[in-house]
Protein backbone atom coordinates (compact mmCIF):
# COMPACT_ATOMS: atom_id res chain seq x y z
CA UNK A 1 0.00 0.00 0.00
CA UNK A 2 1.38 3.37 -0.98
CA UNK A 3 1.56 6.09 1.64
CA UNK A 4 2.26 9.80 1.45
CA UNK A 5 5.47 9.27 3.42
CA UNK A 6 7.02 7.58 0.39
CA UNK A 7 6.86 10.91 -1.38
CA UNK A 8 9.86 12.06 0.64
CA UNK A 9 12.00 9.57 -1.33
CA UNK A 10 10.58 10.75 -4.64
CA UNK A 11 11.24 14.31 -3.60
CA UNK A 12 14.99 13.72 -3.54
CA UNK A 13 14.93 12.03 -6.92
CA UNK A 14 12.84 14.77 -8.50
CA UNK A 15 14.97 17.53 -7.00
CA UNK A 16 18.11 16.09 -8.60
CA UNK A 17 16.34 16.03 -11.95
CA UNK A 18 15.13 19.60 -11.53
CA UNK A 19 18.60 20.84 -10.66
CA UNK A 20 19.99 19.19 -13.78
CA UNK A 21 17.55 20.78 -16.17
CA UNK A 22 17.55 24.27 -14.69
CA UNK A 23 17.77 27.20 -17.04
CA UNK A 24 17.15 25.87 -20.53
CA UNK A 25 13.94 26.15 -22.52
CA UNK A 26 11.83 23.04 -22.85
CA UNK A 27 9.00 21.54 -24.87
CA UNK A 28 5.40 21.81 -23.83
CA UNK A 29 2.41 19.56 -24.53
CA UNK A 30 -1.14 20.97 -24.30
CA UNK A 31 -4.15 18.65 -24.56
CA UNK A 32 -7.64 19.95 -25.45
CA UNK A 33 -9.97 19.07 -22.58
CA UNK A 34 -13.35 20.52 -23.62
CA UNK A 35 -16.43 18.28 -23.29
CA UNK A 36 -16.01 17.03 -26.87
CA UNK A 37 -12.31 16.30 -26.29
CA UNK A 38 -13.01 14.36 -23.10
CA UNK A 39 -15.73 12.32 -24.84
CA UNK A 40 -13.32 11.58 -27.68
CA UNK A 41 -10.58 10.28 -25.37
CA UNK A 42 -8.45 13.30 -24.40
CA UNK A 43 -7.81 12.16 -20.85
CA UNK A 44 -6.14 8.83 -21.76
CA UNK A 45 -4.15 10.75 -24.39
CA UNK A 46 -2.88 13.14 -21.73
CA UNK A 47 -2.08 10.23 -19.45
CA UNK A 48 -0.23 8.48 -22.28
CA UNK A 49 2.05 11.51 -22.62
CA UNK A 50 2.79 11.40 -18.89
CA UNK A 51 3.47 7.66 -18.96
CA UNK A 52 5.60 7.80 -22.08
CA UNK A 53 7.71 10.67 -20.73
CA UNK A 54 8.14 8.83 -17.44
CA UNK A 55 9.17 5.63 -19.22
CA UNK A 56 11.86 7.55 -21.09
CA UNK A 57 12.98 9.50 -18.03
CA UNK A 58 12.16 12.80 -19.70
CA UNK A 59 11.40 15.30 -16.98
CA UNK A 60 11.82 18.63 -18.72
CA UNK A 61 8.57 18.54 -20.72
CA UNK A 62 5.40 19.95 -19.20
CA UNK A 63 2.02 18.43 -19.99
CA UNK A 64 -0.95 20.76 -19.62
CA UNK A 65 -4.49 21.15 -20.82
CA UNK A 66 -6.77 23.75 -22.31
CA UNK A 67 -10.45 24.03 -23.13
CA UNK A 68 -12.01 24.25 -26.57
CA UNK A 69 -9.54 23.93 -29.45
CA UNK A 70 -12.08 24.88 -32.06
CA UNK A 71 -12.68 21.70 -34.05
CA UNK A 72 -14.72 19.05 -32.29
CA UNK A 73 -14.50 16.50 -35.10
CA UNK A 74 -10.70 16.48 -34.89
CA UNK A 75 -10.56 15.81 -31.15
CA UNK A 76 -8.61 14.65 -29.26
CA UNK A 77 -6.30 17.49 -30.27
CA UNK A 78 -2.85 18.17 -28.87
CA UNK A 79 -0.48 21.11 -29.36
CA UNK A 80 3.23 20.46 -29.00
CA UNK A 81 5.34 23.59 -28.55
CA UNK A 82 9.06 23.33 -29.13
CA UNK A 83 11.83 25.20 -27.32
CA UNK A 84 11.24 28.27 -29.50
CA UNK A 85 7.49 28.33 -28.92
CA UNK A 86 6.81 26.91 -32.40
CA UNK A 87 3.52 24.97 -32.36
CA UNK A 88 2.52 21.74 -34.10
CA UNK A 89 -1.12 20.64 -33.75
CA UNK A 90 -1.90 16.93 -33.71
CA UNK A 91 -5.44 15.74 -34.34
CA UNK A 92 -7.51 12.61 -33.68
CA UNK A 93 -4.95 11.48 -31.18
CA UNK A 94 -4.88 8.22 -29.24
CA UNK A 95 -2.37 6.61 -26.86
CA UNK A 96 -0.64 4.66 -29.67
CA UNK A 97 -0.04 7.85 -31.61
CA UNK A 98 1.28 9.49 -28.47
CA UNK A 99 4.13 6.98 -28.23
CA UNK A 100 5.26 7.95 -31.73
CA UNK A 101 4.93 11.69 -31.12
CA UNK A 102 7.08 11.37 -28.01
CA UNK A 103 9.71 9.24 -29.76
CA UNK A 104 9.93 11.23 -32.99
CA UNK A 105 8.90 14.78 -32.14
CA UNK A 106 9.73 15.27 -28.48
CA UNK A 107 12.89 13.18 -28.39
CA UNK A 108 14.18 13.63 -31.94
CA UNK A 109 12.65 16.95 -32.93
CA UNK A 110 10.89 15.53 -36.01
CA UNK A 111 7.13 16.22 -36.00
CA UNK A 112 4.97 13.26 -37.07
CA UNK A 113 3.37 14.97 -40.07
CA UNK A 114 0.89 12.14 -40.67
CA UNK A 115 -0.88 13.04 -37.43
CA UNK A 116 -0.84 16.80 -37.83
CA UNK A 117 -3.70 19.08 -38.68
CA UNK A 118 -1.86 20.03 -41.87
CA UNK A 119 -2.41 16.48 -43.09
CA UNK A 120 -6.22 16.75 -42.79
CA UNK A 121 -8.21 17.61 -45.89
CA UNK A 122 -10.30 20.35 -44.39
Amino acid at each position, binding site marked *: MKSLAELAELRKKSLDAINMRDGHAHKRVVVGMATCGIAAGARPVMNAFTEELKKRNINDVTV*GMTGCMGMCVLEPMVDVYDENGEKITYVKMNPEKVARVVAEHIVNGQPVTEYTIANENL
Partner: protein
Amino acid sequence: MVDLSLHLMDIMQNSVVVGSTFVEVGISAEKSRNLLTIYVKDDGWGMSPETVKRVSDPFYTTRSTRKAGLGIPLLTDAAQMAGGEVHIESEAGRGTTVTATFQIDNIDRKPLGDVAETMTASIMGYPDMEFHLILKNEDTEYVFRTEDVREQIGEVPINDIEIISFIRDMLNEQITLIFGGILNEIIS
Protein backbone atom coordinates in the same frame (compact mmCIF):
# COMPACT_ATOMS: atom_id res chain seq x y z
CA MET B 1 -19.14 9.85 -22.07
CA VAL B 2 -18.59 6.16 -21.45
CA ASP B 3 -18.08 6.36 -17.71
CA LEU B 4 -18.63 8.54 -14.66
CA SER B 5 -14.96 9.47 -14.29
CA LEU B 6 -15.18 11.23 -17.67
CA HIS B 7 -18.25 13.15 -16.55
CA LEU B 8 -16.29 14.13 -13.42
CA MET B 9 -13.39 15.28 -15.58
CA ASP B 10 -15.77 17.43 -17.60
CA ILE B 11 -17.60 18.91 -14.61
CA MET B 12 -14.21 19.63 -13.00
CA GLN B 13 -13.25 21.53 -16.14
CA ASN B 14 -16.11 23.92 -15.38
CA SER B 15 -14.71 24.48 -11.89
CA VAL B 16 -11.13 25.19 -12.92
CA VAL B 17 -12.04 28.07 -15.23
CA VAL B 18 -14.15 30.08 -12.77
CA GLY B 19 -11.40 31.38 -10.52
CA SER B 20 -11.53 28.54 -7.99
CA THR B 21 -8.67 27.87 -5.60
CA PHE B 22 -9.82 24.35 -4.87
CA VAL B 23 -11.96 21.63 -6.41
CA GLU B 24 -13.33 18.76 -4.36
CA VAL B 25 -14.62 15.54 -5.83
CA GLY B 26 -16.72 13.18 -3.75
CA ILE B 27 -17.85 9.64 -4.48
CA SER B 28 -20.11 7.92 -2.03
CA ALA B 29 -21.73 4.51 -2.24
CA GLU B 30 -24.60 3.53 0.04
CA LYS B 31 -25.51 0.02 -0.84
CA SER B 32 -28.33 -0.11 1.70
CA ARG B 33 -30.04 2.74 -0.14
CA ASN B 34 -28.91 1.55 -3.58
CA LEU B 35 -27.44 5.00 -3.97
CA LEU B 36 -24.28 6.23 -5.64
CA THR B 37 -23.61 9.94 -5.22
CA ILE B 38 -20.88 11.89 -6.94
CA TYR B 39 -20.20 15.58 -6.62
CA VAL B 40 -17.81 18.32 -7.73
CA LYS B 41 -17.49 21.31 -5.44
CA ASP B 42 -15.54 24.50 -6.04
CA ASP B 43 -15.03 27.94 -4.53
CA GLY B 44 -15.22 29.79 -7.83
CA TRP B 45 -17.36 32.67 -9.01
CA GLY B 46 -20.54 30.68 -8.77
CA MET B 47 -23.67 31.28 -10.80
CA SER B 48 -26.66 33.53 -10.49
CA PRO B 49 -29.99 31.78 -9.83
CA GLU B 50 -30.86 32.59 -13.43
CA THR B 51 -27.79 30.77 -14.77
CA VAL B 52 -28.42 27.79 -12.49
CA LYS B 53 -31.89 27.57 -13.94
CA ARG B 54 -30.61 27.90 -17.46
CA VAL B 55 -27.98 25.18 -17.14
CA SER B 56 -30.09 22.67 -15.23
CA ASP B 57 -33.19 22.86 -17.39
CA PRO B 58 -32.55 21.45 -20.87
CA PHE B 59 -35.84 22.83 -22.17
CA TYR B 60 -34.93 26.27 -20.94
CA THR B 61 -31.50 25.92 -22.54
CA THR B 62 -32.63 24.80 -25.98
CA ARG B 63 -35.02 27.72 -26.18
CA SER B 64 -32.38 30.30 -25.43
CA THR B 65 -30.55 31.68 -28.42
CA ARG B 66 -27.24 31.53 -26.61
CA LYS B 67 -25.09 28.58 -27.50
CA ALA B 68 -25.74 26.18 -24.64
CA GLY B 69 -23.15 24.01 -22.96
CA LEU B 70 -23.24 20.25 -23.18
CA GLY B 71 -21.51 19.02 -20.07
CA ILE B 72 -24.20 19.40 -17.45
CA PRO B 73 -27.00 18.15 -19.75
CA LEU B 74 -24.92 15.04 -20.53
CA LEU B 75 -24.45 14.39 -16.81
CA THR B 76 -28.15 14.94 -16.22
CA ASP B 77 -28.98 12.37 -18.90
CA ALA B 78 -26.59 9.85 -17.37
CA ALA B 79 -28.11 10.33 -13.92
CA GLN B 80 -31.72 10.20 -15.08
CA MET B 81 -31.09 7.08 -17.14
CA ALA B 82 -29.92 5.39 -13.93
CA GLY B 83 -32.85 6.53 -11.80
CA GLY B 84 -31.05 9.52 -10.34
CA GLU B 85 -30.81 13.24 -10.82
CA VAL B 86 -28.49 16.22 -10.94
CA HIS B 87 -28.63 18.99 -8.42
CA ILE B 88 -26.75 22.29 -8.69
CA GLU B 89 -26.13 24.44 -5.68
CA SER B 90 -24.44 27.70 -6.44
CA GLU B 91 -23.98 31.12 -5.00
CA ALA B 92 -22.43 34.01 -6.88
CA GLY B 93 -19.08 34.80 -5.33
CA ARG B 94 -18.96 31.68 -3.16
CA GLY B 95 -18.83 28.64 -5.36
CA THR B 96 -20.75 25.78 -6.87
CA THR B 97 -21.51 22.18 -6.06
CA VAL B 98 -22.81 19.89 -8.79
CA THR B 99 -24.18 16.63 -7.42
CA ALA B 100 -25.36 13.62 -9.40
CA THR B 101 -27.07 10.53 -8.03
CA PHE B 102 -27.50 7.06 -9.51
CA GLN B 103 -29.14 3.80 -8.49
CA ILE B 104 -26.18 1.48 -7.93
CA ASP B 105 -27.88 -1.57 -9.40
CA ASN B 106 -29.54 0.17 -12.34
CA ILE B 107 -28.36 -1.53 -15.54
CA ASP B 108 -28.12 1.84 -17.23
CA ARG B 109 -25.76 3.20 -14.59
CA LYS B 110 -22.45 3.95 -16.22
CA PRO B 111 -19.37 2.35 -14.66
CA LEU B 112 -17.22 4.52 -12.41
CA GLY B 113 -14.19 4.40 -14.70
CA ASP B 114 -10.71 5.67 -13.95
CA VAL B 115 -11.21 8.27 -11.23
CA ALA B 116 -7.49 8.26 -10.39
CA GLU B 117 -6.67 9.38 -13.92
CA THR B 118 -9.32 12.10 -13.74
CA MET B 119 -7.67 13.44 -10.58
CA THR B 120 -4.09 13.29 -11.83
CA ALA B 121 -4.96 14.80 -15.21
CA SER B 122 -6.60 17.72 -13.39
CA ILE B 123 -3.67 18.17 -11.00
CA MET B 124 -1.29 18.04 -13.95
CA GLY B 125 -3.31 20.65 -15.83
CA TYR B 126 -3.81 22.99 -12.86
CA PRO B 127 -0.82 22.52 -10.56
CA ASP B 128 -1.53 25.75 -8.66
CA MET B 129 -4.96 24.63 -7.52
CA GLU B 130 -5.79 22.32 -4.64
CA PHE B 131 -7.75 19.14 -5.37
CA HIS B 132 -9.51 16.88 -2.92
CA LEU B 133 -10.96 13.43 -3.45
CA ILE B 134 -13.28 12.00 -0.83
CA LEU B 135 -14.32 8.38 -1.12
CA LYS B 136 -17.02 6.92 1.06
CA ASN B 137 -18.50 3.48 1.28
CA GLU B 138 -20.91 3.14 4.18
CA ASP B 139 -18.62 3.68 7.20
CA THR B 140 -15.30 3.67 5.39
CA GLU B 141 -13.82 6.92 4.20
CA TYR B 142 -10.67 8.04 2.43
CA VAL B 143 -9.58 11.63 1.96
CA PHE B 144 -6.93 12.71 -0.52
CA ARG B 145 -5.73 16.31 -0.55
CA THR B 146 -3.05 17.88 -2.72
CA GLU B 147 -2.11 20.03 0.29
CA ASP B 148 -0.89 16.89 2.06
CA VAL B 149 1.18 15.93 -0.97
CA ARG B 150 2.77 19.37 -1.13
CA GLU B 151 3.77 19.06 2.52
CA GLN B 152 5.82 15.98 1.62
CA ILE B 153 7.41 17.16 -1.60
CA GLY B 154 8.43 20.68 -0.58
CA GLU B 155 9.90 22.59 -3.51
CA VAL B 156 9.22 19.84 -6.06
CA PRO B 157 6.28 20.89 -8.25
CA ILE B 158 3.21 18.71 -7.85
CA ASN B 159 2.98 18.25 -11.64
CA ASP B 160 6.36 16.52 -11.67
CA ILE B 161 5.81 13.32 -13.63
CA GLU B 162 7.14 11.03 -10.89
CA ILE B 163 4.85 12.64 -8.33
CA ILE B 164 1.81 12.48 -10.60
CA SER B 165 2.46 8.85 -11.34
CA PHE B 166 2.77 8.07 -7.62
CA ILE B 167 -0.50 9.84 -6.84
CA ARG B 168 -2.25 7.87 -9.55
CA ASP B 169 -1.05 4.52 -8.19
CA MET B 170 -1.94 5.53 -4.65
CA LEU B 171 -5.45 6.63 -5.57
CA ASN B 172 -6.06 3.47 -7.56
CA GLU B 173 -5.12 1.41 -4.52
CA GLN B 174 -7.45 3.41 -2.30
CA ILE B 175 -10.37 3.26 -4.75
CA THR B 176 -10.01 -0.52 -4.88
CA LEU B 177 -9.71 -0.69 -1.10
CA ILE B 178 -12.75 1.48 -0.38
CA PHE B 179 -15.13 0.10 -2.97
CA GLY B 180 -13.59 -3.39 -2.98
CA GLY B 181 -16.69 -5.38 -1.97
CA ILE B 182 -19.02 -3.64 -4.36
CA LEU B 183 -16.38 -2.67 -6.87
CA ASN B 184 -17.86 -4.76 -9.62
CA GLU B 185 -21.19 -3.18 -9.05
CA ILE B 186 -19.76 0.30 -9.18
CA ILE B 187 -17.13 -0.35 -11.79
CA SER B 188 -19.24 -2.64 -13.96
